[in-house]
């Protein structure tokens, strides 16, 4: 989908992108990295908005020479406000469609469809100036969808949304590849969102790509069944002591939580039995797995 080969961009002495070579593919891809890592520079290069050295192709088109064509097939949902004053949502989306080359009637139909998808059915005729933050985010999503893109760039789509709206936005995003046939690149600082929604990830740091691959590859496949996190109603230490006697290795994390490495041939039954023996109640049991956040920090730490 996106191929980079020796992509380099300097701003004066600053190396914004340092000879990046990578192939980016997937359904919903998280683009992660600290501030200043080069994410926005990468985006500008891929959209053909700034010159660079090296090669970059998006959807088979060269970013250096066919930038306009790329932007016709890519939708961008910006982080900041990007509206025209005094227009309603329908007018804005229709205008957006026309600017991407659609004939007027087609643009209008698709504008309505995009606004339905984004959940703005009721309010779409009202001027955007009066919209709440959540509604504005939805309009930004709709205007990115109206011209039937094959790829979407979403920049912090849940910015400023309250928990319910955030949830709805993430559901919209998750459904997009199936319902609209487009792939998504999601740029965000909220790693739990990435954990929930993405299947692939690209991590950037100081102008270089540190990781490209699936989320599973990032955090290690589901850990071995013998490494567990156990939660008890109370007195984790007591359970830890009991399990240690049976040959497990335990670390007490808090009053109610402990990490357990079962002995060879041990199963979770051992945990339940020991708990029952000592009158303790098991309230949680999970195979230990690195969260995306921990994995991310690890990747960055390794890079240093």
């Amino acid at each position, binding site marked *: 989908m996106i191929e980079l080969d020796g992509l380099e961009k300097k701003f004066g002495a600053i190396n914004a992108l340092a000879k990046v070579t990578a192939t980016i593919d997937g359904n919903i891809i998280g683009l*992660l*990295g*600290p*501030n*200043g890592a080069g994410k926005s520079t990468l985006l500008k290069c891929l959209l053909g908005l700034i010159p660079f050295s090296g090669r970059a192709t998006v959807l088979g088109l060269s970013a250096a020479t066919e930038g306009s064509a790329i932007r016709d097939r890519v939708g961008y949902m910006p982080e900041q406000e990007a509206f025209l004053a005094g227009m309603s949502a329908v007018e804005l989306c229709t205008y957006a469609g026309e600017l991407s080359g659609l004939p007027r009637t087609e643009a209008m139909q698709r504008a309505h469809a995009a606004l339905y998808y984004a959940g703005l059915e009721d309010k779409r005729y009202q001027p955007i100036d009066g919209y*709440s*933050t*959540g509604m504005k985010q939805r309009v930004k999503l709709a205007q990115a969808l109206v011209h039937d893109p094959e790829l979407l760039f979403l920049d*912090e789509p849940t*910015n*400023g*949304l*309250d*928990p*319910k*709206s*955030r949830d709805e936005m993430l559901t919209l995003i998750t459904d997009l590849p199936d319902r609209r046939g487009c792939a998504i690149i999601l740029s965000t*600082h*909220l*790693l*739990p969102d990435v954990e929930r929604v993405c299947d692939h990830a690209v991590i950037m740091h100081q102008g270089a790509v540190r990781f490209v691959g699936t989320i599973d590859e990032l955090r290690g496949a589901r850990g071995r*069944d013998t490494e567990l996190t156990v939660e008890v*109603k109370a007195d984790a230490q007591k359970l830890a002591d009991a399990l240690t006697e049976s040959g497990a290795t335990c670390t007490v994390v808090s009053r109610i939580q402990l990490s357990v490495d079962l002995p060879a041939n041990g*199963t*979770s*039954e051992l945990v*339940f*039995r020991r*708990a*029952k023996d000592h009158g303790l*109640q*098991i*309230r*949680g*049991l*999970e*195979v230990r797995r690195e969260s995306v*956040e921990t994995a*991310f*920090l690890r990747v*960055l730490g390794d890079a240093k």
Partner: protein
Amino acid sequence: MSVVAKGCSKWYGHVLGVSDIDLTLRPGIVGLLGPNGAGKSTLMKLMAGLLRPSRGSLAVFDKNPFDDIAVRRRIGYAPEHEKTWDELSALELVTVMAELAGVERSRSRRAAETAIEEMGMTKAMHRRVYGFSKGMRQRTKLATAIAHDPDLLLLDEPLTGVDPVARADIVERIRKLGEAGKTVVVSSHVLYEIEALTSEIVVIYRGQVLAEGNVYEIRKLIDKQPHRIRIECDQPHAIGSALASAEHVARIGFERGAVLIETRDPDRCYDQVAEAVLAGGIAVTNLTSPDNNLGAVFDYLTGGAARE
């Protein structure tokens, strides 16, 4: 008690800010949650002494923050917006704000430097704020709020736009402040940020306090929603049938490789599940309570239970 509000209401003409708030806050970190427009910012500004209650009272350390300058000097407020004097350097900015908060001239620079170091901004402190990234601005804002060593800290969305590296760092520093005995009120929409900081929450809904206290205790109080317990194992139906006859079970559902139990008495349920597991020699790979977290609690409170 750090903050005591009694029957506190604030109206802006016809617009409702908060209505009839009774609240007590103690030292430690408390999360302030609520949908947009519910009144969180109004409550914060009342606590910061920027607004006067239209009715009722709100006392900080037993004084009225709107009138009492001495108590205002014990309050640090980091608002959501970032408009500030961009042309100053970080150090100059924090120094000026510290002086405005009552720190003497002679000490202000040192206090500012300490605060900046606390927030990990020492390397950049002589640079102008103008060129700062979002994360650096947030850190500078936080340094401003703590420079005068306040006892009450009000942080409105302190982690917006902050990258994950900086986030982990700032969360750690806020936690240390809470452990040091300060009262820290953190307002955020991103529930896992709050979860990382504290289990004590106050939920504001439609201008009123909907719930306060420990998340897990609040969860127990939400009767209408039976507790959900999910068990991934090799014999889900065995567990299901073992619990089907229990009176406290409201519903049993099955997914591939898992059984989902809704119960009104989670305590008894956990015991019975453990018995069933041991009796049937069932291999359990995952046992969780999917709705025993802040997100679910918030959802139940503002979505269902609140609609009375």
